[in-house]
């Protein structure tokens, strides 16, 4: 199963969220969670396209004691993020966007981690558990 989408151009953003929607459906997520997952993937993939130039988004099933979920892994070797606290604030954007992306994704999923080093890139993991 090919669970990763390389993000190089705008169309790859569409491909990534379609993959996410399909995996979410297969795992049995309801329509609201499907929308949350699709939206989160769209935000992360667009950030890669806009700020890192390229990277990839992987969508996989994940398991923990007593629960099943979907994990979104967004990875790039772009410029990285200097101030992680700042980019998690609502309304912070370096591109004239709404600045809703990252703080929004954090609210849409159950678990969210971000690692980034300036000059090295950014790794974001987001998990939504099946209820």
């Amino acid at each position: 199963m090919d669970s990763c989408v390389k993000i190089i151009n705008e169309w790859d953003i569409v491909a990534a969220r379609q993959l996410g929607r399909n995996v979410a459906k297969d795992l049995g997520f309801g329509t609201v969670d499907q929308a949350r997952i699709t939206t989160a993937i769209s935000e992360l993939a667009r950030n890669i396209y806009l700020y890192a130039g390229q990277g990839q988004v992987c969508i996989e099933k994940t398991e923990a004691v007593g629960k099943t979920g979907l994990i979104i892994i967004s990875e790039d070797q772009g410029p990285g993020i200097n101030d992680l606290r700042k980019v998690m604030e609502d309304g912070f954007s370096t591109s004239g966007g709404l600045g809703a992306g990252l703080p929004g994704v954090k609210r849409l999923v159950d678990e969210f981690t971000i690692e980034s080093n300036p000059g090295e890139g950014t790794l974001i993991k987001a998990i939504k558990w099946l209820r």
Partner: protein
Amino acid sequence: MRIPILKLHDCLLVSIQWELDDQTALQFQEDLLHKIHETSARGVVIDFTSIDFIDSFIAKVLGDVISMSKLMGAKVVITGIQPAVAITLIELGIRLEDVLTALDLEKGLEKLQRELED
């Protein structure tokens, strides 16, 4: 692909039927403004019944096109926002405040007519 924009009396009708990619969204923004100019439309109804998610980019394009239409003298009503879409938009932190909304296309047109009367 371009989103078709229909004219009905002094209003424009748009029904978004498939998932929006960035280019299509931006093209729509431009097309709608030209169409308002061309037809002197006073109102626009944009229906989202077929749309199952809206992200921050599409929300920005949508908010912008509503403000731009207003500048040109046209009122916009958006209709058919699904429950899942409403929930994710609010969780994302996006509040399309001061935006006229209605449940479906028919109610949207009624609302627009009332708005245009007074």
